[in-house]
């Protein structure tokens, strides 16, 4: 049979059109629940300089989901985690946030480590109406109807650590901070809280995240003769400060209060002489002596064997974030965003391994027990505890119950 080229072309076009039409006519699969599972999304830094901080976050999320599924799942369905590695790169955070929101259609996203990454993805999740949990201690002030923050804020951390240090050591403070929004706003909080307690910040220095030589800084600190140092350093480059400080023989002379030290388990990977004596204030330590904590640590070690570092408030915040969200879903009886937000705003709480955690409805932040500790021999020794400290609300302005459409980060006014 003789096949004409034109006939072949016409036949192919018709066939393809029919095929395409058939495919498009298929009923759209509900993407958010494949085979009846509830999908939650997470973006963590599993490689790159932030690897020690991101790895524990994903592990805690996985443990929380495993425990939820073991107890029967949520609304009769299993919970599934869609996880992306942002490789310590904010561009990838943006890319994966879009993917979670638009391609994977997750019902909630637990994502973000650095405050810079949070401010990249928070608007993305808001635009796509994906409920967003930011589970990392930060500089406070986020007031976003679509977001919940389960990390500590300066009103809980600095507001307790600084008066402790001022009373113990004196009124002259030298601030060393990372040079991005977290460090800069935390420094403002330090100045504000110092002022409120009659102390003074004699100097503040900011360092980009890749600075690892602190010789001149150590000289300038010695010249200023402060009572103590407040240190808001982030990442491995900054962690070399402590070794250089000890190497210059300064450990006995001027104490250090750190807002971030130990969160990546750095103290386990350096000689004890370097980390001994540093003061911190977090809402969770592995060393906390409570039955709930022991049960958590046993479960964690059973799941991850020896393949884990120190679990700090970075990982614990993710665990608490996922569990609180699950409580919200149970109370709302649905994964629908508006219903879960209302349920969370009704004042949900849980008994976390570090103490009782309660969601504060007005700010979408959490009320925690806080503990001041000092490092000795690579272990945190708890010095003082504060029960149920409310989160920062700069100027008392944020009220998401009254104004649910607020979308701003408020800063302290000095």
């Amino acid at each position, binding site marked *: 049979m003789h096949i004409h080229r034109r006939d072949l072309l016409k036949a192919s076009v018709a066939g393809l059109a029919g095929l395409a039409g058939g495919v498009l006519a298929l009923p759209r699969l509900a993407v958010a629940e494949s085979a009846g599972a509830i999908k939650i999304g997470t973006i963590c830094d599993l*490689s*790159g*300089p*932030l*690897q*020690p901080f991101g790895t524990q976050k994903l592990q805690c999320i996985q443990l929380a989901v495993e425990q939820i599924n073991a107890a029967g799942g949520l609304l009769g369905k299993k919970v599934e985690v869609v996880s992306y590695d942002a490789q310590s790169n904010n561009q990838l955070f943006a890319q994966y946030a879009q993917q979670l929101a638009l391609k994977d259609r997750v019902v909630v996203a637990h994502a973000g480590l650095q405050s810079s990454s949070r401010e990249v993805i928070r608007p993305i999740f808001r635009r796509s109406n994906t409920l967003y949990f930011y589970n990392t201690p930060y500089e406070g002030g986020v007031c976003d109807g679509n977001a919940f923050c389960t990390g500590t804020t300066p009103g809980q951390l600095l507001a307790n650590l600084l008066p402790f240090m001022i009373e113990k050591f004196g009124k002259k403070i030298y601030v060393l901070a990372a*040079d991005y929004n977290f460090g800069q706003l935390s420094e403002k909080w330090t100045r504000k809280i110092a002022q409120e307690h009659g102390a003074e910040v004699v100097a503040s*220095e*900011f*360092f*980009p995240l*890749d*600075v*690892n*030589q602190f*010789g*001149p*800084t150590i*000289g*300038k600190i*010695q*010249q200023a003769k402060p009572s103590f140092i407040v240190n808001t350093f982030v990442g*491995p*480059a900054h*962690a*070399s400060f*402590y*070794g*250089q400080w*000890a*190497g*210059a*023989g*300064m450990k006995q*002379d001027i104490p250090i209060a750190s807002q971030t030290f130990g969160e990546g*388990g*750095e103290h386990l*990977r*350096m*000689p004890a*002489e*370097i*980390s001994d004596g540093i003061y911190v204030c977090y809402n969770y330590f592995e060393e906390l002596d409570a039955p709930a904590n022991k049960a958590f640590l046993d479960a964690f070690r059973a799941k991850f064997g020896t393949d884990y*570092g120190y679990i700090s408030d970075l990982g614990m915040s993710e665990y608490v974030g996922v569990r609180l969200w699950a409580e919200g879903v149970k109370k709302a009886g649905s994964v629908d965003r508006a219903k879960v937000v209302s349920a969370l705003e009704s004042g949900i709480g849980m008994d976390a391994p570090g103490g009782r955690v309660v969601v504060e409805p007005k700010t979408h932040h959490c009320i925690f027990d806080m503990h001041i500790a000092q490092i000795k021999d690579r272990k945190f020794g708890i010095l003082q505890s504060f029960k149920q400290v409310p989160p920062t609300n700069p100027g008392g302005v944020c009220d998401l119950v009254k104004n649910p459409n607020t979308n701003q980060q408020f800063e302290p006014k000095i």
Partner: protein
Amino acid sequence: MDFAAIVLIQVLYAIASLALISVGLAIIFGMMKVINFAHGEFLMLGGYAVILPVQAGVNLWIAMLIIAPLAVGLFGMIVERVIIRPLYGRVIETVLATWGLSLFLIGAASEIFGYFQEGTSPPLGSIAIGAYREGVYTFFVIFIAAAVMAGVYLFLKRTRFGLVALGTMQNPDMAAALGVDTGKVYALTFGLGAALTGLAGAVLAPISGVVPIIGITYIAKAFITVICGGAMALSGTAAASVLFGTVNQVVTFLSTPIIGEVALLVAAIILLRLLPAGITGRFFRSGL
């Protein structure tokens, strides 16, 4: 008064660390005219070549002064044979190839070592300078930098191999006509540059720790120093290190480390504008 002493010591330290990270590149780029974009990663390998043996129990000084240079030097010779030699004279291809090597090394180190950085404190303790304290290791770095510069000078000027290497770099055809195995000279010279870079990475490792991306922090400064140094590899690097180290550190003391870096870059731009052939295009021409 004491503070002035601290500033002076820190300035000398800045000059020393700049010279250390640049001298290997000065030999590879200044003498051999090979653009090695993996230079920062050689520093990183030098750092790992001291931290890993120390974790396994080897003495710190042996690891730093013997193992690290040898290991990175050997690696450099392999790189020269496999990547650089087929591309001699082809500048763009060498840039691409060494940049690819740099990305590969960073990726491999990220996979193998990860970012769980071991914290270290510089050894040798501290001493009091008036009312201030300074680490003794700072003086060690200054001493090592001076020793390396002197050693390279003596090696190139006084030994037979140094003479042969200088001649081969100047005029390879003539050297080959006189019976020199130019391939072996290239390999050994590249290996020497790599070994010096490994030593620099090892010496700086106890101060700032080692992560896979630490090379990125150093590579820009190393290239700026070598290029602004000019044609004479050794005296150029020394002169440029003195100038930039001083500018960087003095401005850092007056303001912040960021402004110090900016000052270094501004100084480099002004220098190249005034002396396009680098410092030794005009001064110190009788050097090495």
